[in-house]
């Protein structure tokens, strides 16, 4: 297979684009896709300070690398979740990447700061581990960005992540979640803007980017994610994609272009009922925010 751009031998095929790329042209392809996403959704500008949520995995490290390569003012944020040796190992990947790029990494340790880790917190709150983890991370991304004066939090959600989330939301017709499923969630009172610059790249592409660029990342999956619903959705979509390349992108971008404008009012209505949590000041529609409830339940065990 030849590179679609320069006709040199290809090292990666992207069936969605019916194309192969050599190493340099693939890096440019990734960079172009991210630039296009940032610009088309008006995510941020060259002067904005970006906090990249970094897990030590392929997506977040590829994102941080691409933003630095493109000249953005991007720092990293690593959250120690207390998931045994997995957290120790993933933190190491994040720290080594930051050191290799002379980039600034902000660290928050969940057990040391809030007195619980994900295994105990999820059990105390009777939530699935991924639910307790997501809730904790979303809260800490936002609070760390507010404290640090950042203009936006960037996460490594890729095309596969977003298509799988959309698949799940459609299966349940969850109008609130569908209304919020955007590449950009605007900032507001108590909220920092959240952006997803990788939505035009599949996770096979972010993994290939890391391999080609020599970015060492944690390959192993989080032990607490094993068998979760999200992975099942991804496998189902990949079965469709294997016989009909481009289906995931058509599903996601068809939704964003045609359906999202129709369902956004559901999310806007939810946002109108927000008020500051008495515990932490974060916006919530409940009496006390879900994060403070989780901390309280975990600490009462």
């Amino acid at each position, binding site marked *: 297979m030849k590179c679609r751009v320069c006709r040199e031998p290809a*090292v990666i095929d992207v069936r969605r684009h019916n194309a192969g790329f050599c190493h340099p042209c693939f890096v440019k392809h990734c960079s172009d896709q991210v630039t296009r996403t940032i610009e088309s959704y008006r995510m941020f500008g060259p002067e904005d300070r970006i906090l990249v949520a970094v897990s030590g995995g392929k997506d977040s490290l590829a994102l941080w690398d691409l933003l630095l390569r493109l000249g953005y003012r991007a720092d990293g944020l690593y959250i120690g979740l207390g998931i045994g040796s997995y957290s120790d190992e993933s933190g190491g990947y994040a720290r080594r990447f930051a050191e290799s790029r002379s980039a600034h990494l902000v660290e928050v340790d969940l057990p040391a700061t809030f007195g619980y880790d994900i295994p105990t917190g999820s059990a105390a709150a009777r939530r699935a581990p991924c639910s307790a983890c997501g809730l904790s991370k979303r809260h800490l991304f936002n609070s760390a960005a507010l404290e640090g004066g950042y203009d936006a939090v960037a996460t490594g959600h890729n095309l596969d992540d977003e298509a799988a989330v959309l698949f799940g939301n459609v299966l349940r017709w969850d109008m609130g979640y569908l209304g919020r499923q955007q590449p950009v969630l605007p900032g507001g009172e108590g909220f920092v803007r959240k952006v997803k610059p990788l939505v035009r790249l599949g996770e096979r592409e972010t993994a290939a980017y890391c391999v080609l660029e020599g970015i060492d990342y944690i390959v192993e999956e989080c032990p607490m994610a094993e068998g979760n619903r999200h992975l099942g959705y991804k496998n189902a979509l990949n079965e469709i994609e294997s016989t009909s390349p481009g289906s995931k992108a058509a599903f996601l971008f068809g939704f964003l272009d045609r359906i999202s404008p129709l369902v956004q009012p559901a999310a806007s209505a939810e946002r109108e009922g927000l008020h500051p949590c008495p515990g932490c000041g974060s916006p919530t529609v409940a009496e006390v925010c879900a994060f403070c409830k989780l901390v309280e339940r975990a600490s009462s065990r």
Partner: protein
Amino acid sequence: MDGPLAVSALLNRLDVNRESVLVIVDGSLVTGNATVPASATVEIRPVISGGAL
């Protein structure tokens, strides 16, 4: 593996979906139509991750 085999054929034989992996042969990333020599070291690296979003 008995002899040279195309990457796509190897993945079919192993019942692995191409969308869910990268194939690295002797340390180099390869495309689906590349041929894997019988003596090569092959890594089939999963790319699907899915935890809290």
